[in-house]
């Protein structure tokens, strides 16, 4: 049977000296470069319309970006919502996530916040109500408030940075924790820096598309 064609054997061919890593980055053979995952907070302005949340979350799942939390809420502009997305990815992944996000049509802007940006999360912890004084003492340590109490359970609300929240969760572990509800991060840049809807700078006239009343996803 005749198949294919004649020509130099693979072993006899000119070969390049270099190599890339699995991310397509050329590497120094002496030092294998691997990027450690890092946490990034992406503050994203989106059009406040139906389907945005599902579009954004579907993007993260189909491209296998590791998402830690995603919060969405209204802004001072009725037509614009803000999503705060915390992801943990090696460097090319963070960059890729930002660019893919920016490509979505309802996405107005994507900004990675500085690590020192103000980040807050709210947590509700429901614990067994048998030791109210001890629970109160721990809640005070974290500037928490008891928001509901019954003979059976006590619910404490705590707000703070991710580190503080995690420390609080660990501290409450001594009680019989029934339920933990976390909101995910809300974050804003420190100082005068603000995220602006770039579209407003270019067009005085507002957009010509339909104006939906509310986002139904959240």
């Amino acid at each position, binding site marked *: 049977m005749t198949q294919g064609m004649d020509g*130099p054997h693979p072993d006899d061919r000119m070969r390049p000296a270099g*190599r*890339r890593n699995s*991310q*397509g980055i050329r590497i120094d053979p002496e030092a294998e470069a691997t990027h450690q995952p890092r946490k990034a907070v992406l503050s994203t302005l989106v059009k406040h319309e139906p389907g945005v949340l599902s579009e954004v979350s579907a993007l993260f799942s189909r491209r296998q970006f590791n998402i830690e939390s995603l919060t969405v809420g209204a802004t001072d502009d009725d037509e614009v919502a803000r999503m705060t997305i915390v992801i943990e990815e090696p460097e090319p992944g963070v960059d890729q996530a930002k660019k893919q996000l920016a490509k979505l049509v309802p996405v107005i802007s994507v900004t990675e916040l500085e690590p020192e940006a103000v980040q807050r999360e709210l947590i509700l912890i429901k614990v067994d109500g048998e030791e109210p004084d001890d629970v109160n003492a721990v809640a005070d340590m974290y500037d928490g408030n008891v928001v509901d109490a019954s003979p059976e359970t006590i619910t404490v609300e705590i707000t703070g940075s991710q580190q503080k929240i995690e420390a609080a969760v660990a501290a409450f572990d001594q009680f019989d924790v029934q339920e933990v509800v976390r909101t995910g991060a809300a974050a804003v840049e420190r100082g005068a820096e603000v995220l602006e809807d770039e579209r407003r700078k270019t067009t005085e006239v507002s957009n*010509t598309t339909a104006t939906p009343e509310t986002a139904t996803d959240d």
Partner: protein
Amino acid sequence: MSEQTPVSPPDGETTETDEQTTRETAAATDEGSETTNDTVSTGAESVVAALEQAGAETLFGVQGGAIMPVYDALYDSEKLTHITMAHEQGASHAADAYGIVSGKPGVCLATSGPGATNLVTGIADASMDSDPMIALTGQVPTNFVGNDAFQETDTVGVTQPVTKHSYFADDSDTVGTDVGEAFALADAGRQGPTLVDLPKDVTKGETDRFPGQPQTPDTYNPPTTAEPEAVDVAAAALAEAERPVILAGGGVIKAEASDELRAFAKEYQIPVITTMPGIGSFPETHELSLEWAGMHGTGYANMAITNTDCMLAIGTRFDDRLTGDVETFAPDADLVHVDIDPAEISKNIEADYPLIGDAAAVLDQLHDAMPVAYEALGTSSEAYEEWREQCQTWKDEYEMEYDMPEDEPLKPQYVVERFSEVADDDAIVTTGVGQHQMWASQFWTFTEPRTWVSSHGLGTMGYGVPSAIGAKIAAPDKEVVCFDGDGSFLMTVQELSVAVREDLDVTYVVLNNEAVGMVRQWQDGFYEGRRMASEYPWIPQFDMLAEAFGARGFRLEDYDSVDEVIEKARNYDGPAVIDAIIDPAENVYPMVPSGGDNGLFALNGDQLGDI
């Protein structure tokens, strides 16, 4: 014409006034404008008006309950021609091919539920290959949405991952604007498919709002030219190189940048490799052409792409069928990556010199920057001389060839090669997916952009028959040849009825090896020859099947009648099908095994066993 309500006075919104004014001005200056077409009374009429305003001419679709109001409005359209397809998948592939050949969005439409889901394969195909397309789907009335109504599917949800954007039209007043925006978005920047889901109450609903000129969404601002400083640095890298290559992707064709590519390559004498979607961007007859690289690319293209020290890649997303193992892909190369989509930069292969912009514009920028770069380094493109000679040597050493022993059945490569020799220079070739697709792309000689129409990224078997229909309708004056495989042909053969009904002069060549040949080849190579579900001992006789559809059928079994049969099929004025019975044992070479090292491609079965 049905009775229509006149345009009502603007309702006070500034934007609306602007749109009305723009439209009226445009209508006033257009001598051929038909006064009957500038008013609408329903959402469906405004959908049709939006398509007409966007410049659409042909729609490919299938009727059905929820889309009926739109079809009813089409009844009165003098500008839009509708081609009724046999199956919605055929509609989406025909629209995709129409988009590839014409360069502007192809339009397909279907009803809700199964109509919409049948379109999805073609939409996903267009998404992978960045082909401009707009899909319009019927939907159950808005008050039924979410109730699991008859023929209800969450079409926006299903299609969102495979479109640039999927719109849910929820208002008769704005549905036309939505369609116009979807059309403009499909065409703008990196092209791709968009979809508008049209609930029946929205299309039936009354409106007097005539859609404005199509506009892209205000959040969508594709780049044009690259940063001048970045261009200078990239030019310096190219000038400094000793072994440069150009890798021209499908984006070159999409951006109408073939002329700029040719001018650049010829001026600076840099060898050109294309990707498969980039076929036709550079003439394969030119001495600088190394044809295309990748899994079944030429040996010389894969040698050059592996050993280059500087690659100018334009409009390519570095698919795994091109790169093979990324660790061994062009490992010595400084990569200058030109793309209109920033997300493609460093997605699969890290770009050392990213140039974000339109391919034609950036090639012009680079063209102008090169002389300065050479001068600064005291070099010229003559420095590439040795490398060009090396590439020529590879073209001889790894020449694309095949044997034709007398005692073996017809070789498919010969059929493709003979057809290529007699066909018009600007003939359009479409294909299904599989071995025949590889042979067509390897042994047909392409010289012009938009003459190669295929399913690359998604690899959709069945793309052939409907894509030839879309291609012929987009370019009625050009010769259209479809190479298909027997497996691929059977998946969409029903569309032959459309080619006959529309009297399309298309020649189908079924390279028939009674098997899903590419799968059979892999089973023989990598699964110890265990041919599970890959052989078709029950294959129909395609020449007779063609005749049953009303097309002309030919059977081709031996070398002596190849020229004669091709001539007869070409001369037949209407769809003709050549059932070419080929050697079932023939495999596609060269071959880089999946995830393998491009430089270690196998030229034949023995080499495949060694790597």
